[in-house]
């Protein structure tokens, strides 16, 4: 006697592969690429409609990831502007993290969340400190003002990039309440000395009357790719969050892996742009004496050309 499901599985095993399938393989990929990011269906025909659209966006964002997809960190086409004096982390439609700054004088800036400094080829994120009203690079602590200009510490080869934007709605007081973000603009050229300053200011000190609780982007757990191999196979178009452990082989070959077993990388993908040899010689071997580099288990990155590009350490970002 055997379970019925087992006997039926036996029958299924007799199914024969269609003979002409290899010919179809040789014709190349034919199926559609991964679905494009969800586009906002709200089109502002006038101010009233724009206000309605923003209200709907804000409300829906509170209950679900409207404007995002499981493929990327894509944010909505129209971003809400926080209250005057407040800075809010947001994601652009391509999933790029930015901060929307509503300055105390009522003006608005959209500031890139990526520092211009790249260590060993890793992208580095900044956080927002409300008490000093400055952005701080999380890893190396360069400080930038609320417009993105470099102010102290480093290394920082320039200020933070900013983005052009168009105001699509205003509140009753005339302040911008919703914006559509456009092209990236050149950062302020001011930069830190070549050598990191020996004494770094605190990241987010206490200041009377102001919060010193840093503001960062929050990653939606449902949007995290479980393995780099999955992400690369699906080739999502934009910035993604992915779990993985970096493996730098003895020859400097860099991979992001779901699991590492010795020098074997399971569920992994090739990483582009990281100086594997420099990392190995200067950081990994002096510290651990062996290959592998478990600096982060959560990464932001892009998938381009079948590899992980622009890897960004993101373990410090909260996941919800």
């Amino acid at each position, binding site marked *: *006697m*055997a*379970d*019925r*499901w*087992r*006997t*039926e*599985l036996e*029958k*299924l*095993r*007799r*199914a*024969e*592969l*269609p003979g002409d*399938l*290899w010919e*179809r*393989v*040789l*014709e*190349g*990929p*034919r*199926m559609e690429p*991964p*679905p494009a990011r969800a586009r906002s269906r709200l089109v502002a025909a006038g101010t009233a409609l724009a206000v309605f659209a923003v209200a709907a966006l804000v409300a829906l964002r509170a209950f679900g990831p409207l404007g995002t997809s499981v493929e990327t960190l894509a944010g909505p086409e129209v971003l809400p502007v926080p209250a005057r004096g407040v800075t809010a982390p947001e994601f652009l439609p391509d999933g790029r993290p930015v901060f929307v700054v509503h300055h105390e004088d009522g003006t608005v800036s959209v500031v890139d969340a990526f520092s211009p400094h790249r260590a060993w080829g890793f992208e580095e994120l900044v956080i927002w400190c409300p008490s000093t009203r400055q952005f701080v690079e999380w890893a190396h602590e360069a400080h930038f003002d609320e417009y993105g200009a470099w102010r102290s510490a480093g290394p920082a080869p320039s200020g933070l990039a900013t983005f052009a934007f168009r105001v699509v709605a205003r509140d009753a007081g005339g302040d911008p309440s919703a914006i559509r973000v456009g092209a990236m603009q050149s950062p302020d050229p001011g930069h830190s000395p070549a050598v990191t300053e020996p004494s770094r200011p605190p990241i987010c000190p206490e200041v009377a009357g102001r919060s010193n609780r840093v503001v960062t982007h929050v990653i939606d757990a449902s949007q995290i790719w*479980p*393995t780099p*191999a*999955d992400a690369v*196979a*699906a*080739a999502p178009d934009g910035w993604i969050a992915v779990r993985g452990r970096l493996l730098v082989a003895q020859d400097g070959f860099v991979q992001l892996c*779901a*699991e590492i077993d010795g020098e074997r*990388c*399971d*569920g992994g993908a*090739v990483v582009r742009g990281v100086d594997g040899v420099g990392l190995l010689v200067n950081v990994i071997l002096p510290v651990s004496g062996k290959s592998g580099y478990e600096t982060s288990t959560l990464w932001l990155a892009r998938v*381009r*050309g*079948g*590899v992980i590009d622009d890897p960004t350490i993101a373990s410090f970002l909260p996941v919800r």
Partner: protein
Amino acid sequence: MGEVGGAVGRRERAELAQGLEELYRTTAPQLWRAIYAYVGGRRHLAEDVVAEAFARAIERAPEIRAPRPWIFRTAFRIATRELRRERRPLPPSPDPVPGIDPADVQDLLGALWSLSPNQRAAVLLHDEEGFTGPEIARLLGMSAATVRVHVFRGRRRLRELLSVEEDVDG
């Protein structure tokens, strides 16, 4: 090839395919059966998925270090995405394919459909195709412990749904 992932000509594709043709001969039958059952007996979707996974592997052959697990992962991911996109219920009966009578597997495919996608994939690879837990872990990009849980729960559910026992020897 030029930029990885860019357009690849037919002749170039054929050259890259030579290295994968042997893998196709040994792997595609298993993958095809698993995907056919995974997508609820939709023959044309299963054909599309398997062909697409191998075609993408050829496009990216130079950068794939372990083609077999890459192809399996890609195939199951494509299949999952297509099922999610279609949002269609299980077809009333499986599409006929050479070698089997659709009526013989209709109940099984219906029961498999009630499993989660990961359970369905794990059970098919384990109990239909005979892969071990660690092999499935490598094929699907999950841990061996997770695979064991999926197989255990999937089997339990199948037993509940197809509880009538049959005499294998008739």
